[in-house]
């Protein structure tokens, strides 16, 4: 059940160009990999939707790319600060797969460490835009890494159940390559629980709320 609670910051650690925000878990459920949480962004009106990256005992950890004022504020949190966290929300990855392969692109790798743990460390392929961004692969030991201009889709072998998260063009390419893949999408969200109708995406030819139907959807 989603729950809203004020959680204390344990640490903010640099992982390549990203920040790993580690929070005390409190009574908040870690949920299923691919589900997301709404994190209060200090000084901003709206919370930010982030999928869980790691769930060590007593902790919730989020991998964040500081792309705007909200994510920047989250990356600047320090030990002892506290923020409101609401979740877990949405539908995560289905874990009943026989031959899982995890595919991640850039900051889209965020939910994969927690997913890898739940699936007992299946093979992982990751794509990044630079060597510096690829440093984040340290969170997924053993992952095969492609760096631009090599595309991560070139690393996907046949015969796997693909679970992917990354930028939209990558997800479209993965979906075309691997029908039935589970794809975790992103959309601007004000609320995360179906109230704002902001995160509408086209699903089966209709505009639907990603926070309600997704964020993980099956590739057609």
């Amino acid at each position, binding site marked *: 059940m989603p729950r*809203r609670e004020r959680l204390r910051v344990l640490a903010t650690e640099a992982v390549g160009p990203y920040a790993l925000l580690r929070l005390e878990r409190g009574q908040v459920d870690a949920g299923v990999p691919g589900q997301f949480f*709404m994190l*209060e962004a200090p000084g*901003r*009106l*709206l*919370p930010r939707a982030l999928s869980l990256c790691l769930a060590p005992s007593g902790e919730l950890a989020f991998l964040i790319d500081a792309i*705007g004022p*909200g994510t920047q504020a989250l990356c600047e949190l320090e030990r002892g600060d506290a923020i*409101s966290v*609401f979740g877990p929300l949405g539908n995560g990855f289905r874990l009943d797969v026989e031959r899982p392969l995890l595919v991640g692109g850039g900051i889209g790798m965020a939910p994969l460490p927690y997913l890898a743990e739940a699936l007992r460390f299946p093979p992982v392929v990751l794509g990044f835009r630079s060597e510096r961004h690829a440093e984040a692969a340290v969170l997924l030991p053993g992952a095969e890494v492609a760096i631009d201009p090599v595309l991560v889709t070139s690393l996907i072998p046949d015969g796997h159940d693909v679970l992917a998260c990354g930028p939209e063009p990558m997800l479209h390419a993965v979906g075309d390559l691997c029908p039935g893949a589970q794809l975790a999408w992103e*959309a*601007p*969200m*004000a*609320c995360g*629980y*179906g*109230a*704002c*109708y*902001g*995160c*509408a*995406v086209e699903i089966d030819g*209709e*505009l639907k709320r990603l926070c*309600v139907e997704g964020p993980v959807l099956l590739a057609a």
Partner: protein
Amino acid sequence: MLLNASGCLDALLAPDVARSLDGFVTKTITPLPREGNAAPRIAETAHGMLNAIGLANPGRERFLSETLPRLRELGVPLWISVGGFCARDYADTCAVLDDVEAIELNLSCPNVDEAPESAAEIVAACRAATALPLYAKLSAAHSDVAAVARAVADAGVDGLSLVNTLRGMALDPKTLAPVLARGTGGLSGPTLKPVALGAVHACYAATKLPIVGMGGVTTGRDMLEMIACGAKHVALGTILFSDPDAPARVSDELQEAAEALGVVQPGDVFALAHEGEKRLDIASIVAA
């Protein structure tokens, strides 16, 4: 009475939040289903947000057969927000509604084309179609919102909902293109509160009708100020996105905010912001 602003809560997905309110206001219902506008539909601004959802809703028929029966099961008084693109759209929906707390006529969505008729003409058509309490939801984007309020009052509304969002725009920091696919969207959040207080104040003075005050209400103190301007009821909008627990919190804070001013009941400050009304005199209250 504390409500939600239309379009800021899905009671079926968040029934506990709906039950923490004194009434639930639905998302606006139009005669035909609407998918709404293309994405991106929302953008955060410095002290507010823009939305251009575009009245996404299942349409009147499906609302009546599927959504409304499920909403009734929640046991929360229902306010139905009704929209349309001509007076007849509004009136036809009003005519088929019964056994609800009130109907709110959305006469001011900034994200769709307006009906050709005036607000008063739409209200008159709806008044002829239903005996249910009718509230007119107005925008503050009129040079004289009180004049519009007087016109809809003369046409037969029972109350006013003030205010709807104001049309605005946000630009992408890198490309300078509008962030929203529609270009413009409705501005809401704390930035709207002074506009809302001004509109509630002016329309209460002009009509003395019951008013649902909304626009940037985030705290109990905000709610107290709405009441002081003449709002009988208050609705929460954007705050529900970041804080689903806001209804209980704001209610608690309202009581505290009143007590901090030496007032026993929050209702005691009703319309106090109006000239000629009794002013709070902290010194005399403390002395007493």
